[in-house]
């Protein structure tokens, strides 16, 4: 029998054409024209390594970096609107007052290393959909509204529908992610963010973001989102449900952590089995709740 095989090693990209549109319309036209052949180039911090390994072989790159109109932050209608090209490092200091800005800042410092944060973009991270990406987890936690555009129109995709599986989103090949809209959490919202990685700057083996309020001494509107443990960012609905209305404190935090660890469908890889991922979820969920009531 026997099979024919390819060389297993590569480090230089296969050849491609490079297009630098001068306007959003031109970019959308290019995407419409080239479809599956084309890839948007944003910060390049995920796409370029993938091309070097020849895991991605786009025939055409459409570079959106020159489109400065996609680099903006605006607060309207209790929402923070994040243009796709806003760089990770922008979020290291809170970009808005209140818990939303604080939570983004807590997460930002865990996104890779400094040079990556200066280059990589918020929208690029969402579009790339790494299950261990901080922004994907925050988007899922806060039920972000993701705004897209193609030459034939635009749509709004809720985060829950947007992230489909590893590196796969609801975006069509001719569709550009324009903006992410996050709710501006009310000032009494408590937020926590915990993650575990082998080395500083590595993608996390697991991460947990939480947000909740305390009304009349009880946990209200709890949200728990998990990253790095499955094929996409997840919420932990059972854990959210069980802690809703509970007294905040070690027993309820532990119980919620235990439930979160149990309810998720964890996936193992060479850095840790599914069961180890659950151990991390348990520890990090509790710590995220503790952090939230301690600091906010």
């Amino acid at each position: 029998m026997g099979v024919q095989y390819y060389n297993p090693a590569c480090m230089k990209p296969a050849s491609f054409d490079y297009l630098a549109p001068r306007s959003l319309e031109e970019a959308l036209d290019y995407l419409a024209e080239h479809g599956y052949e084309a890839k948007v180039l944003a910060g390049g911090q995920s796409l370029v390594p993938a091309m070097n390994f020849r895991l991605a072989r786009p025939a055409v790159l459409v570079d959106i970096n020159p489109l400065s109109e996609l680099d903006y932050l605006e607060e309207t209608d209790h929402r923070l609107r994040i243009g796709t090209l806003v760089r990770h490092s922008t979020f290291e200091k809170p970009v808005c007052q209140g818990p939303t800005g604080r939570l983004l800042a807590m997460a930002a410092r865990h996104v890779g290393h400094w040079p990556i944060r200066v280059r990589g973009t918020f929208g690029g991270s969402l579009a790339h959909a790494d299950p261990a990406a901080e922004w994907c987890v925050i988007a899922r936690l806060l039920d972000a509204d993701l705004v897209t555009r193609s030459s034939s129109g635009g749509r709004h995709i809720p985060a829950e529908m947007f992230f489909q599986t590893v590196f796969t989103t609801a975006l069509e090949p001719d569709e550009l992610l324009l903006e992410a809209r996050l709710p501006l959490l009310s000032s009494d919202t408590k937020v926590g963010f915990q993650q575990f990685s082998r080395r500083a700057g590595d993608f996390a083996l697991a991460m947990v973001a939480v947000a909740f309020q305390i009304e009349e001494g009880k946990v209200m509107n709890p949200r728990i989102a998990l990253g790095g443990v499955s094929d996409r960012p997840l919420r932990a609905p059972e854990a959210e449900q069980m802690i809703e209305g509970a007294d905040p404190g070690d027993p309820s935090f532990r119980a919620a952590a235990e439930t979160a660890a149990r309810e998720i469908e964890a996936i193992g890889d060479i850095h840790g089995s599914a069961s180890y991922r659950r151990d991390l979820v348990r520890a990090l969920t509790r710590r995220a709740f503790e952090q939230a009531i301690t600091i906010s």
Partner: protein
Amino acid sequence: MGRSLARFEDPPLLTGDGRFVADLNQGARFLRFVRSPIAHGRIRSVEIPDHLTAFTAEDLHEVSPIRPLLHREDYLPIEQPVLASQKVRYVGEPVAVVVADSPEAAEDAAEQVYVDIQPDRPVVNALSALETNAPVVHDLVGHNVVVDACFETGQVAEVFSSADEIVQFDLRSQRQNALPLEARGSIASYDRRTGRITLIASVQSPHVVRTILADLLDLPESDLRVVVPDVGGAFGQKFCLAPEDVVATWVAGRLRATVSWIEDRRENLMSSFHSRDHHYRIRGAFSSEARLLAVDADLVCNIGAYSCYPVTCGVEPLMALAEFPGPYDFRTYRVRSRGVTTNTCPMAPYRGVSRPVITLAMERLMDKAAARFGMESVEIRRRNLIADFPYTSVTGLVYDEGSYLESVNLAAEKIDLDDFRRRQQAALDQGRRLGVGFSVFSERTGYGTSAFAARSMDVTPGFETVDMTMDPSGNVEARLGASPHGQGLETTLAQLIGDRLGVDPSRVRIVHSDTDRTPYGWGTFASRSLVIAGGAARLASDFLRDKLVAIAAAELEAAPEDIVVRDGRATVVGTDTGLEVAEIARLSYHSSHRLSAGMDPGLTSTATYNPAGTFSNACHAAIVEVDEETGAVRVERFVVVEDAGRLINPMIVDGQLHGGITQGIAGALYEEIRYDEEGNILTTSLMDFLPPTMAEIPNIEIHHLETISDATITGAKGLGEGGTIGAPAAIANAVADALRPLEVEIDELPITPARLRRLLKSVEGGKVIG
């Protein structure tokens, strides 16, 4: 000497003026190796599209296979074709080479080569490879055991049966890659005028590379020149012969052109030499006084698919066998040490070679025994360390003077062990687990030919030669066969030579790493260069110094014993009458008629040094905190007490320790090459193979002891590997100490968070969370 002079090597490296192989390949054509994606199988065909320039084993049929040799019955030689022919034996093995005009085009071309392989069942794990029905990696051998060495003193059974305590355990050290920042690479160029081929390569031993290239390609050595430019780390990975360098040299000759192979990180992780990957079964017998009476050890080293040239795959098992006792005194010893072939990347010595693992074994043995006796870990060491010198070990190694006990005592003092125990208890009361671990070891360095000959090596390294010239301006040039590549030897040797010749070190130029310019030598590895090349430099400078003194004495009409050479002048003792060293130098060339009868003009000398070897020693102590819920280990403090004899440049010594300890911590906690059962390598990027960063490495506190023995003429001992040798055991012992109440045994490295969690969950009865 003894001054922390800033390294002469650094300014160009720090300002971007360094020149590495990849900086030198302008005008070259680019090679790309087509590598096997299959761990074990038969090559049915290699199909190359007509428009490509590519070569396979068939084209290279006149190139001899690499056949590293030991002359001993417990070693079976195996052959490695420089490009796989008939069989592939590991994922990443080079099968063909393509030539193109750019690296990108070379990758495109490599993708168009189709290799048709009939897969066979592979074997990946060394213990599986020992099983009777295991796949056989080398058909001609018929099984996978290519090294099978035994040693036994007698009385083993008796001592074990009458012992008060017997400690038994299995130990596993996973596989690593030495991971130099600069991966391997070479540029081979054929000179149409002379017919010579120059290989510019990132290697540790240019002369040895030239010899083996000449042997394999059947060329006179004089037709080859090997030059090593700046090297971005090597750590042993660049000591053994890369088949790719042979292929590059052959292609240059075949095309009468310049070709360049620059290894990328993925190739490096997949097909550059790996290391460690040992499995041990250890038994230790102790008296009621906690004295170690006997050790019984079964050592299995995974050597990968091939034996490495020149040291052979015997290097790990044979070193482990001979040096296992380390710094401990016991007289009854039985050991079997095997080297086993598998369908994995070939192994070569990496900083420390077997010693990080044998030190781990002895140090875990000591700590386990200490726990049985309810004794502090430093106390059991005090009772068992060697203390009388010279000491002859149970395997016949002679240890020169060292400070084994003193190093342990000083380390315990610096750590403040009593205070730590209080802090540890207080932390435990708050649910935090701290631990302290000690590791004490001997580091055999400066191996001369007699030490290597004991292994019956076909190629027996050891000596070093230094050619030295003082030119008419009074500047010194020393040419070495050693090949420093980051160790700061240019600075240290300049200090040593300058000191002997009374000239400033800045006037001493060290020439190395070019076979056209330097005497035959063995390169830089095994913590040898300062000891051996330094000894030769000392002898060569002494000859020149005597001649300077003789000339000065004649000129100044004084007795030679009354001449002092210092600060650039030769003066008559007690007076200020004298001559500049530069004046004497000029005189020796330009007014040689004034020299005494029988004295040759000029100032040149040659000396060779070949010591038996010397042992430096150290004690490492680590304090760690273990996060029981995540399995993470944080190193809070790391203390080293090091004794490397006379320190010529203490700053450079500290630098060696920092780097070595970082690599030791890497092996203890982070780095692990993984294969799946099919022999596919899973760790081919730095997202999966995890060297620690500055953020993970603690501050390293260093304290020096200076025991001067007469084993070397400079009083200096080697210390290049000690950091890597001692750190893993210190960390493992510290983690075990932190978890002592839970009775978790740390017998496998690296201690990854996932592995530690698994261990914690496996202990019954312990109050483990989760």
